[in-house]
């Protein structure tokens, strides 16, 4: 497994070196828009940082990844809950989201306690959070308020925690290699994002949902998702799937990721913001970077669990 990880991160660093090189060539050309280059440079620099941090987490193994994604969940939850409609009556529900829900979910994931972490947020928290709000007696906007807290917890805690949950799957013949599956998922979803952007810039004509995200096109979506699926097939060595099913799984993950980005863009529009936060220079907030991952991870997790763990 160490060999695959070295090759993988080596490859990523080569891509980044190439990207940094292209950006510096663009910056030297007089006709390029300096703002665009500045944003591109920021984005690439942030990718260096993110991949370096991810690399350290991989070196630390399972615990490193669980902690890293717990921190990401915290940052996303903070960004999301900052923008929800809330009243003081919701204070306890909000405080316990950070103090109890997030740590409990990640401890359960870390312990591999599937029977608990798969239902904790959608069942227990779903029912208890509105109780914490209702006992304070404020009814104005009640349904919107409690729904938004539930949404925040589902996306930012439950869904994102399914990335490190992949580590605990026991797939016959894939022992001790589950870190690679995490790398596969993240790589496919993030590459799909970059590839959609690139395809969209080159061939984009038909707008996908102009009111939600003016720059997204059908050509970008289809081209990006399909090329991410091809990338997935090429990287099948990281998975227990084999080339064809790696293609299918990557296709599913990239499609979920693309539409997850769209859904959360609509949520941003609804809240009147362009970015979820400001934590990652050039990218916006943590949730801007992880929106696709949040939508892809649980589906990817359950398909893998069903077809490669349970049925195997």
């Amino acid at each position, binding site marked *: 497994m160490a060999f695959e990880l070295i090759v993988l991160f080596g490859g990523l660093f080569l891509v980044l070196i190439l990207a940094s090189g292209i950006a510096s060539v663009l910056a030297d050309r007089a006709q390029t828009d300096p703002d665009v280059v500045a944003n591109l440079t920021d984005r690439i620099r942030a990718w260096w940082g993110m991949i370096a941090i991810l690399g350290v987490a991989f070196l630390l193994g399972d615990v490193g990844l669980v902690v890293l994604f717990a921190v990401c969940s915290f940052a996303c939850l*903070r960004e999301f809950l900052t923008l929800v409609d809330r009243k*003081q009556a919701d204070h306890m529900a909000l*405080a*316990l989201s950070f*103090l109890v829900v997030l740590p409990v979910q990640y401890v359960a994931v870390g312990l591999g306690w599937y029977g608990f972490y798969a239902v904790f947020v959608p069942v227990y928290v779903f029912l208890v959070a509105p109780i914490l709000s209702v006992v304070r007696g404020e009814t104005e906007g009640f349904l919107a308020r409690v729904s938004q807290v539930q949404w925040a917890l589902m996306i930012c805690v439950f869904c994102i925690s399914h990335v490190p949950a992949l580590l605990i799957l026991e797939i016959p013949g894939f022992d001790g290699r589950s870190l690679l599956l995490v790398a596969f998922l993240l790589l496919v979803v993030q590459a799909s994002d970059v590839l959609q952007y690139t395809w969209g810039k080159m061939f984009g004509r038909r707008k996908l949902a102009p009111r939600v995200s003016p720059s997204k096109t059908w050509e970008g979506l289809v081209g990006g998702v399909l090329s991410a699926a091809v990338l997935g097939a090429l990287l099948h060595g990281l998975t227990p799937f084999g080339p064809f099913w790696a293609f299918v799984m990557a296709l599913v993950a990239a499609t979920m990721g693309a539409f997850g980005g769209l859904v959360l863009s609509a949520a941003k529009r609804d809240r009147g913001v362009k970015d979820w936060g400001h934590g990652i220079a050039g990218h916006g907030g943590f949730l801007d970077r992880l929106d696709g991952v949040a939508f892809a991870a649980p589906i990817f997790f359950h398909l893998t669990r069903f077809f490669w763990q349970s049925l195997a």
Partner: protein
Amino acid sequence: MTNVTDTPVTAAPLRPWMRLLARGVEAVIVTFARLVCAPRVTVTAPLTAGPTRVFFANHSSNADTILIWAAVPPELRATLRPVAAADYWLPKAVRRFLGLHVFRILPIQRVAAVRDTDPVAQMAAAVDAGSSLVIFPEGQRNRGEAELLPFKTGLFHLAEARPDVAFVPVWIGNLNGVLPKGERLPVPLICTLTFGAPFQHEDGETKEAFLARARAALLALRDEGA
């Protein structure tokens, strides 16, 4: 010009190990405040240690002072003196240490009847000594629905006494959501700190005109930061 009294505006010097402790506590509080509030700072002019300024902000939470103090760059923080209530900060030993040596507050007497020093004179003296001030011109925490309470007149009297000092409005957003009144557990939401453009007291400007201008400058930031 207001008379400068002999009131000491800086605390007595500390023994080295106490000084070390104060800076250690400062580091812990700054880290904690930044972790809990993730303050998003927007500036119109750079926050350098340079010129003496009076930062004035809306006051909706007890943590307002700490947030501004923690969010600014360390070189500015070293010259910053939050104007704070002497009756709250001075009587108890721990709070006194935190107030005088960690936050480096400028303790003023809130109740005029028991006042032996003039707050405006104290502030003017601190400014003369090269410190920048943090002041909450509403005079009390805003506990109601109003966006901003009426300003007390101290801001104007200071401006009139020191017309060369720049006043900088600071709008603090969202902090009330972090710790609303009556709650004990803080919720780590993202706070915003919007620093506006510096302005000065204009020659002959009346109290009403100056305070209205200051208020408008602060309220303008609220809409900008949102």
